[in-house]
């Protein structure tokens, strides 16, 4: 009876297999043979990126059940998700941390593929489809940030529009296409919604099938041995022999490390979501709230930092020329270096490139988090004045300290480490600049400082400069003109400098440098 049943079941299975060709499908996909050496921990980033994407799709579909893509409703629907919809906060958190994981792991995957030479012959298209996948993923990260529709997202679109508006000839048209209307409004949000849930994921799925198809048809890269060269004439035969002689089926023999890595990743993502929670929404995307700073999400912070740190006027370079060159290099890479050594142990320039790129992006991201180039808008009213910068000052100098406070100097200039970081810390400015130099800097501005000539009365300027000259550590001399110690000592240049006479006389030869 039992044996008969199993026989019947086998018959059904065989019938199904003859119709659906499942065995054949298995042999050419999950069960395909891979070089034994490719079962490495370093080769798990690809499947981890895929896992992130699957999580994004599942959580994304769930969130779309509640989210309302309208400028009037989006923010409220996110608050509803956070606070009222059961587990809404968890899915939002998982979607957010999942997106970050996806970007980070995808970049790691890319670096690994680059260092292990997997982009070389015959896997050029696998690399190129991967580059397109990276762009699509970054597009998803940006459009996802827009859907949050809080302050960061509203002004983030504004920054996007301002960047497009810099493109010559077609800038205005591109801004219109981005916004879908004359201002940032509901049409803009709908546009990004369509991109985020239809266009980009659809494109990503299409590219992903090509990417995986190429991984199957061209085979996964063997773990490169230092000294073994890739040659177009011989590689295909060598690879086939390697897989034939020393190959194992991907499932079950090579998937074990992928499974472990993905299990850990899944746990990490869930823990991140539970303990760090969803990102925002922060204050609503309301343009009448003037007190707002736009900060993009992590994947784009480094660009913001670069925009702040590069010299003025290099925006066209940063936002147009650099991405163009980077894209060309990424696409051309497998053709520029198509053959030869694969192992990173014999490719020092590749290793240095990866280290430099990672260091640059990490440091810029860190700088973006602290944002020292931004004036601290509330510093002039909220930051304390330490006693050592006030004590034992003349009435004129104290008046100057008031001018410094009232004219919001501290939004850009810290004193004793308290205040903005945009300009230099003024704690010891008296040792760097002479009174006439300070007058010139305050009145005319220069560097990144506005000119205060119109906003300060001569009395205010005199008091301010007197105070600035007094800002010196104990027992240090005031700055002197670098024209010759004796001459500078003889003629104090104005009353403000005269008022300050506490400098030691023995510092005649103290040459000072102009800080600008």
């Amino acid at each position: 009876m039992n044996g008969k049943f199993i026989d019947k079941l086998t018959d059904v299975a065989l019938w199904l297999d003859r119709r659906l060709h499942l065995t054949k499908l298995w042999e050419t996909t999950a069960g395909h043979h891979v070089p034994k050496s490719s079962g490495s921990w370093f080769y798990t980033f690809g499947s981890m990126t895929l896992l992130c994407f699957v999580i994004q799709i599942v959580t994304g579909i769930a969130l779309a059940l509640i989210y309302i893509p309208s400028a009037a409703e989006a923010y409220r629907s996110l608050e509803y998700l956070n606070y009222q919809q059961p587990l809404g906060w968890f899915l939002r958190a998982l979607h957010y941390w999942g997106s970050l994981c996806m970007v980070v792991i995808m970049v790691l995957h890319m670096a690994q593929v680059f260092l292990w030479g997997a982009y070389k012959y015959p896997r050029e298209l696998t690399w190129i489809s991967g580059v397109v996948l990276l762009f699509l993923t970054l597009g998803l990260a940006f459009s996802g940030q827009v859907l949050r529709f809080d302050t960061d997202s509203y002004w983030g679109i504004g920054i996007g529009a301002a960047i497009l508006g810099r493109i010559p000839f077609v800038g205005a048209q591109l801004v219109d296409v981005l916004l879908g209307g004359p201002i940032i409004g509901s049409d803009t949000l709908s546009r990004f919604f369509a991109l985020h849930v239809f266009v980009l994921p659809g494109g990503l799925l299409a590219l992903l099938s090509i990417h995986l198809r190429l991984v199957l048809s061209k085979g996964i890269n063997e773990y490169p041995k230092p000294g073994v060269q890739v040659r177009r004439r011989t590689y295909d035969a060598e690879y086939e022999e390697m897989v034939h002689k020393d190959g194992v089926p991907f499932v079950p023999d090579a998937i074990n490390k992928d499974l472990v890595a993905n299990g850990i990743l899944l746990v990490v993502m869930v823990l991140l979501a539970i303990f760090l929670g969803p990102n925002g929404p922060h204050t609503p995307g309301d343009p009448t709230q003037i007190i707002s700073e736009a900060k993009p999400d992590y994947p784009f912070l480094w660009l913001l930092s670069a925009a702040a740190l590069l010299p003025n006027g290099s925006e066209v370079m940063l936002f147009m020329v650099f991405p163009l060159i980077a894209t060309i290099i990424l696409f051309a890479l497998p053709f520029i270096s198509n053959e030869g050594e694969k192992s990173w142990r014999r490719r020092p320039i590749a290793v240095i490139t990866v280290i430099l790129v990672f260091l640059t992006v990490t440091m810029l991201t860190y700088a973006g988090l602290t944002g020292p180039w931004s004036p601290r808008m509330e510093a002039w009213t909220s930051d304390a004045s330490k006693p050592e910068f006030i004590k034992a000052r003349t009435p004129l100098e104290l008046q100057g300290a008031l001018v410094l406070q009232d004219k919001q100097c501290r939004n850009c200039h810290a004193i004793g480490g308290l205040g903005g970081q945009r300009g230099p810390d003024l704690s010891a400015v008296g040792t760097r600049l002479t009174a006439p130099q300070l007058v010139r800097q305050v009145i005319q501005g220069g560097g990144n400082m506005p000119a205060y000539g119109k906003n300060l009365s001569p009395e205010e300027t005199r008091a301010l400069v007197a105070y600035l000259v007094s800002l010196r550590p104990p027992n240090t001399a005031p700055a002197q003109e670098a024209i010759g110690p004796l001459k500078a000592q003889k003629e104090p240049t104005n009353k403000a400098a005269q008022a300050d006479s506490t400098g030691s006389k023995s510092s005649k030869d103290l040459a000072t440098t102009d800080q600008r």
Partner: protein
Amino acid sequence: MSSHESQQPPLGPEAKRYSTRRDFLLQLGVVLNTIAALMIGLPIVGFIFSTLIKRTPRVWVSLGPVSQYPEGVTRLKSYDTPYRRAVDGPTGIINCWVRRVTDDKFKIFAANCTHLGCPVRWFEESQLFLCPCHGGAFYADGEHAAGPPPRGLYEYDYKVEKGELMIKGGVLPTLANPG
């Protein structure tokens, strides 16, 4: 196999007649489908890029009576954008900085910094507009004072009609379309 299936196309002069007919149908099919694709595709492209075909112009918007703006003072003013719809929610109300220079001379600036579009803030005491993003600074008259912005603040066209201040607004200013 039926005899019908196994029938081979005749050779010789007959073959030409067959292939011509097949070729004709193939060509007809390609042409028909191209026309159909254009008939469907062009409206879709036109729909998506409609903002390019019919670009929205700036129009006159009221900022209220001039009497609420004291001379020599810079004030923040919000206005309903002319193209506002209910779904736009809070985004349909835009800020601008209004400075009454003298009697009927005004300077009206967009809140968007000319560097990357962040909202600039006015500081009465130092008479400066400061941008929180990258530290751009502008003087009271909108001129560039310091930092990365490539030009002064964007200014709105304005007119005073029957004691009411009007500006030409409703479009996000950018370097390509400063207004």
